[in-house]
């Protein structure tokens, strides 16, 4: 919000300035003129109190400066023109000669213009005392450069009034001190008042009371400190000077720039009052010298106080900015279904945005702790997810896991991503991460999975349909053996054959053949079944052998043969046997289809297994058939691409996704001489 408010306040300042130039200009001009005149009167009043010496500061300059500050430069002339009659009126009342007050007015205008111009250019916009940098600029320009320069002319006012040219240095110094003091004591509080009007903020009653107490205490401290009490030995004077200091610090710490500028103002007023009204701390010599000493004291005292206020303001603003940006990030995170968290290694403290409660279903009353969140993880996911989280935090390594959270009846999928945060020395000091609600993505994935399973299943059914002739024969063989055995046995018994050993053999064969038929049915059923994806340890050689048995009759029918070169000590793979068998079957049937119309000598398909470099398994299906269509090799994996008359064009697409699902890769390319080779690799099991 801080980035926005200055803009607004500047805009409102300018808006007000526009109003100055509009219907309200006359009113504003009057206000400025009256304020200018009153400021001069105050200066004279103070001056009068001290035997008509030169005023210790000159409030009209501050009035003019403030008017110019909030006005665009093209309208400045209006306010300078408005100030002129007020100036003439005031100076004439004290009987200042025309030449003197013209030079005085000119230098006054010059210093106000210089200050207003510099502040508008360099400090740009309120809050003017919000940062140390701006405050330094203000002090440098308005309390040193600009008055020092303008005093070159201002010094002539007194010379014109009869002063000796030899005292030019002294006159310069007095003129300078008077303007610098005004800039340091009246300027800041006036500017802060202007700021506050553009950004009216009702202070809480407590703050107002505290401000009043601080002001009262400061006034009291000043009265005590600056009063030359007879009871106090002069040796203790430095001590007295320090008396207001704690209260100044209090004001600055609690109220920032406002407090600091207010404190400066109160001290200045109190000190000027005291100095002008008789025995003061600055009892140096002539009243002029005493006042000059007091001016220098205040010029020296004010900048540090203003800087302290600015420093406090800046710190507070930085804190607020941080807090607000945190809140903004939290809000942004929450609105994108993300909860942020951080875990400090050194202290073990856990911080998380409130949205984490929503994600994990924690009620607002429950403490937001890491353990509290972990306890909400679904029992099925809890062991792995907790272990991953603990291990990532313990070893300060990046984390990316997904788990379910049980929130009443609702189950949510949460993803957590975290990374270590390096400290100044490069070592990780904290773990910073985000929880995200990925339920909708998970549901979509699950749905896609189901559809993929459906398609894979349909493809299996369709493949087995193509193989039905061969598969029926696979069943017919054992059934034939069983029937013939049984009939032979019956016949033997009918003939009174008493050879029990032959009957025993018959029964043995019947049992064996029944088992053989059962195996065929089992293989078929697992291929036809629409089951969940299984995760089993698989011997690829066994799986290939079983697939080839399924194809046995089909191969004979098509007058084809398959050679199987199975690698010894092939590592196991992990996955779903049905899906992998489907892939094998599909690739083999593709090879068979490609081999159908080639001469008998080429109708041999070679299947081989091998161990890959990374300890996984490679399966190669090599045929000497017609090969892939030239220049379209890359298209074969696209869904609905087919070279067959009755093909759906989904086989290879399904095979690819099955192999991918197993973390592997499938490739298909033409051989150098003839035919094509399908190769798929599966990674070694994770554990």
């Amino acid at each position: 919000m801080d980035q926005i408010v200055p803009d607004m306040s500047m805009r409102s300042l300018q808006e007000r300035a526009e109003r100055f130039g509009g219907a309200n200009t006359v009113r504003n001009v009057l206000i400025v003129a009256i304020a200018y005149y009153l400021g001069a009167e105050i200066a004279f009043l103070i001056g009068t109190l001290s035997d008509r010496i030169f005023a210790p500061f000159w409030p009209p300059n501050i009035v003019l400066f403030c008017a110019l500050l909030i006005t665009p430069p093209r309208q400045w002339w209006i306010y300078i023109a408005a100030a002129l009659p007020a100036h003439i009126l005031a100076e004439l009342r004290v009987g200042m000669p025309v030449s003197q007050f013209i030079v005085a007015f000119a230098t006054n205008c010059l210093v106000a213009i210089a200050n207003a111009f510099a502040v508008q250019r360099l400090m740009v916009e309120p809050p003017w005392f919000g940062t140390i940098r701006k405050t330094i600029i203000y002090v440098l320009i308005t309390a040193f450069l600009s008055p020092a320069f303008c005093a070159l002319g201002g010094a002539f006012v007194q010379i014109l009034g009869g002063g000796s040219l030899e005292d030019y240095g002294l006159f310069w110094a007095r003129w300078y001190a008077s303007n610098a003091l005004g800039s340091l004591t009246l300027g800041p509080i006036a500017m802060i008042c202007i700021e506050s009007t553009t950004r009216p903020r009702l202070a809480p009653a407590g703050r107002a009371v505290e401000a009043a107490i601080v002001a009262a205490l400061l006034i009291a401290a000043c009265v005590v400190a600056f009063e030359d009490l007879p009871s106090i030995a002069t040796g203790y004077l430095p001590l007295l000077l320090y008396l207001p200091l704690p209260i100044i610090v209090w004001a600055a710490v609690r109220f920032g720039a406002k407090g600091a500028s207010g404190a400066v103002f109160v001290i200045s007023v109190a000190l000027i009052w005291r100095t002008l009204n008789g025995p003061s701390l600055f009892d140096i010599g002539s009243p002029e010298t005493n006042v000059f000493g007091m001016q220098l004291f205040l010029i020296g005292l004010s900048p540090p106080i203003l800087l302290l206020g600015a420093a406090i303001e800046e710190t507070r603003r930085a804190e607020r900015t941080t807090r607000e940006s945190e809140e903004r990030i939290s809000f942004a995170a929450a609105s994108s279904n993300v909860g942020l968290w951080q875990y400090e290694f050194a202290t073990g403290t856990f911080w998380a945005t409130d949205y984490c409660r929503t994600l994990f279903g924690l009620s607002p009353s429950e403490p937001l702790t890491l353990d509290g969140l972990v306890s909400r993880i679904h029992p099925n996911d809890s062991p792995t997810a907790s272990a991953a989280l603990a291990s990532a935090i313990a070893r300060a390594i990046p984390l990316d896991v997904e788990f379910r959270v049980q929130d009443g009846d609702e189950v949510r999928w949460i993803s957590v991503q975290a990374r270590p945060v390096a400290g100044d020395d490069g070592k990780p000091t904290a773990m910073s991460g985000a929880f995200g609600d990925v339920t909708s993505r998970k549901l979509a994935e699950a749905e896609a999975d189901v559809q993929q399973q459906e398609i894979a299943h349909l493809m299996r059914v369709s493949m087995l349909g193509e193989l039905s002739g061969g598969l029926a024969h696979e069943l017919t063989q054992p059934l034939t053996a069983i029937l013939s055995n049984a009939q032979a046995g019956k016949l033997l018994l009918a003939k009174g054959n008493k050879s029990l050993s032959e009957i025993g053999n018959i029964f043995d064969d019947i049992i064996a053949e029944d088992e053989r038929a059962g195996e065929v049915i089992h293989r078929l059923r697992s291929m036809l079944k629409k089951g969940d994806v299984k995760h089993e340890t698989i011997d690829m050689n066994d799986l290939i052998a079983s697939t080839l048995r399924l194809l046995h009759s089909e191969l004979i029918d098509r007058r084809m043969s398959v050679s199987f070169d199975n690698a010894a000590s092939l590592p196991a793979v992990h996955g779903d046997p049905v899906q992998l068998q489907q892939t094998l079957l599909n690739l083999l049937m593709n090879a068979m289809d490609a081999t159908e119309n080639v001469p008998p000598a080429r109708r041999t398909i070679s299947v081989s297994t091998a161990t890959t470099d990374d300890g996984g398994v490679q399966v190669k299906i090599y045929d000497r058939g017609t090969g892939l269509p030239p220049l379209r090799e890359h298209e074969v994996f696209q869904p609905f691409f087919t070279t067959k008359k009755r093909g759906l064009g989904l086989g290879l697409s399904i095979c690819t996704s099955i192999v991918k699902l197993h973390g592997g890769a499938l490739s298909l390319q033409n051989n150098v001489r003839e035919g094509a080779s399908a190769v798929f690799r599966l990674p070694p099991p994770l554990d």
Partner: protein
Amino acid sequence: MGDAGFTTYLVDDDPAVLRSITRLLKAGGYKTKSFSSPQKFLSSHDPSVPGCAIIDLVMSELDGLRLQEALARSGSQRPIIFLTGRGDVPTSVRAMKAGAVDFLTKPVKRDALFSAVVHAAELDAASRQKRQESKSIDERLATLTHREREVLEHVIAGRLNKQIAASLGTVEKTIKVHRGRMMAKLGMRSVAELVRLADRAGIAPARSDP
């Protein structure tokens, strides 16, 4: 129950099926020889032994139809019964056209198998008898002299001895002697019998002189 010496030759490359059908045939009282390889069957085949072949149509080494062709090429006329896993019409038509006795679908029932075997045995016996007869005729024909053979061809052409003598440029008496010897050698008692024999042996009657 076949004749003595009648053997069923069973060829199937599925050992379990081979064993079970062998068992069934033996239980049915048939002398059975079983082969798990069509090549082994071919190489050890003796066509002279009466019997039939029961062959699986679908075998990886050499399928049933080709085995049938190979048998035919080797001159064997052994009747063949095919066994098949499926009722494939075009294949069965081809098999039957090539002379298969029967085409049985697995799993084959005892009665169907046995009746096919019985039928095959009858066919085998008939063809063997036929071959035996023609063989003895050929042997008897071989004993005839050239002149006797000429006389035979004229006799079955329905010519009189006088006409034959004129054709062959000899006297009727000589023809009578040749005719008598020829009839005796062939064991024929009438011309009608002789005509049937000549027809069976494929002897064409002599063309009449112009």
